[in-house]
């Protein structure tokens, strides 16, 4: 016991820098180990199981409940008029017919290809526009309010002028998409840039990241979460604008997209076709968001430690 104590008092003597350094490194390693949060992701099988249970099951149940209520309305003759409310099986029959005629994917592809191409154009225009508005004071004062005001203008309002200017051409559709999506993409980037912590800008400046280099290395990556949120909203706006354009401006030359399908259902007084079109529009909107935008958004947030729980 006594010898241990002597050893200890020897070790704490401060006139031995080597011992000190050794102690420091050990202490530091211990602190690092204690303070670092246990990270790392669960094994794949567990993750898939959890995702199915926590993310997939609830919406499936919700859909089943809606279907059950719908079927009950028909079965118990609460709504007894197929021209007002078709039965689920009638709508499903519509899906089957369209599939067997080989038209179903055609409807979807016509609209999705337009929507995505329009969105990409909006991206190419909205990004530099947003950057200029965010960084140049005069431009922000001049068009910033208009840009955010445009977001609240329903894009369907652009359909009549677009038809008059461009005729019943695909370019009319793209014009409507752009007018709907460019403001939200640009605004997303502007708010992303506005939320960049000033500390990052100062840190960048001390490292020599000023002007364009600062924009590229600091401002843009720091603004990415806001930008991605803007893109997500931009897609929603693209899709809505496109549907508005397709419903109002139908012409044989434009081909049949989902909007025209809806309009065709109305003129043919086929409620099941109208339902089919609405479901497909909803389905595509959700699918694109789930397949493209949500994963990108989650990746951005997770790499920055901003996602509380995956």
């Amino acid at each position: 016991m006594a010898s241990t104590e002597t050893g200890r008092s020897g070790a704490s003597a401060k006139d031995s820098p080597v011992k000190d350094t050794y102690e420091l490194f050990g202490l530091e390693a211990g602190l690092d180990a204690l303070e670092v949060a246990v990270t790392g992701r669960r094994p794949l099988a567990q993750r898939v199981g959890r995702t199915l249970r926590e993310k997939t099951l609830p919406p499936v149940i919700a859909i089943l409940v809606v279907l059950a209520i719908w079927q009950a309305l028909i079965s118990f003759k609460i709504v007894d008029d197929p021209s007002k409310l078709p039965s689920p099986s009638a709508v499903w029959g519509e899906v089957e017919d369209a599939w067997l005629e080989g038209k179903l994917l055609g409807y979807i592809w016509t609209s999705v290809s337009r929507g995505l191409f329009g969105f990409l154009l909006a991206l190419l225009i909205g990004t530099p526009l947003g950057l200029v508005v965010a960084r140049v004071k005069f431009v922000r004062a001049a068009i910033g309010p208009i840009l955010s005001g445009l977001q609240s203008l329903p894009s369907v309002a652009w359909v009549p002028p677009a038809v008059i200017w461009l005729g019943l051409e695909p370019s009319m559709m793209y014009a409507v998409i752009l007018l709907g999506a460019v403001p939200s993409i640009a605004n997303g980037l502007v708010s992303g840039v506005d939320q960049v912590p000033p500390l990052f800008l100062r840190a960048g400046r001390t490292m020599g990241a000023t002007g364009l280099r600062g924009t590229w290395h600091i401002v843009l990556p720091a603004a990415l979460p806001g930008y991605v949120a803007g893109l997500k909203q931009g897609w929603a706006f693209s899709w809505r604008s496109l549907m508005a354009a397709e419903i109002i401006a139908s012409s044989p030359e434009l081909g049949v997209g989902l909007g025209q399908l809806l309009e065709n259902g109305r003129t043919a007084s086929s409620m099941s076709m109208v339902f089919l079109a609405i479901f497909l529009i909803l389905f595509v909107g959700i699918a694109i968001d789930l397949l493209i935008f949500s994963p990108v958004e989650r990746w951005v947030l997770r790499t920055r430690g901003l996602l509380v729980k995956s």
Partner: protein
Amino acid sequence: MATTLAKDADATVSVEHAARIEHVSKSFSGPAGQQLVLDDITLDVAPGEFVTLLGASGCGKSTLLNLVAGLDAPTAGSISTHGRPALMFQEHALFPWLTAGKNIELALKLRGVAKAERRDRAEELLGLVRLKDAYGKRVHELSGGMRQRVALARALAQDSQLLLMDEPFAALDAITRDVLHDELTRIWKETGLSVLFVTHNVREAVRLAQRVVLLSSRPGRIAREWTVQIPQPRRIEDADVAELSIEITEELRGEIRRHGQH
């Protein structure tokens, strides 16, 4: 009025000081008109010297550091440094979209280091702050102390002769802060850097510095200076560190008390 930021080319001219602050004043326009924050500060930091700037809140010590860093311009007087000083903040200011290693590589890239060398140099610097395994780690995966060490490595990556530190350990717990004091002392000795370290913690100032400069508040003026001759390695609980700390604290309290009198 002249503000000189000497470029690297001038570094070949004999170096007598890492930073020269001459008659610097700074005022900001506030609601009550022009407010003088720094009043006629003259201070040299010699090459390889460790100086702490000590003062109560509102003494303008962070303002002075910003001026030296070139983030702001003085109202009067001149500041000259050799090249752009590196600056470390109280918050780590690491970029969360980059890994620890890439944060350091960005500093190297902005300094113009060739791509092929960056990775090796970044790992070397991480080794210096003893975080070799942290290269691929994201900022949020590191503890507070580790973040400040990566921030220190990133500041060192700027390869500047002068390191400015703005209360870099103020947000850390006592044990971690103590460890980082030892690390900083070790790295300062290994690299031969000049350090200008701002703090409101008297013991920290005495623990680290060769020279402690006390600033008075509103406006900030140099009130007194102490040369610390206690040999390194020092401990924050050492008797001679405590003794000098008590003396400086008395002086600092006197400075603060003056403000309550009118």
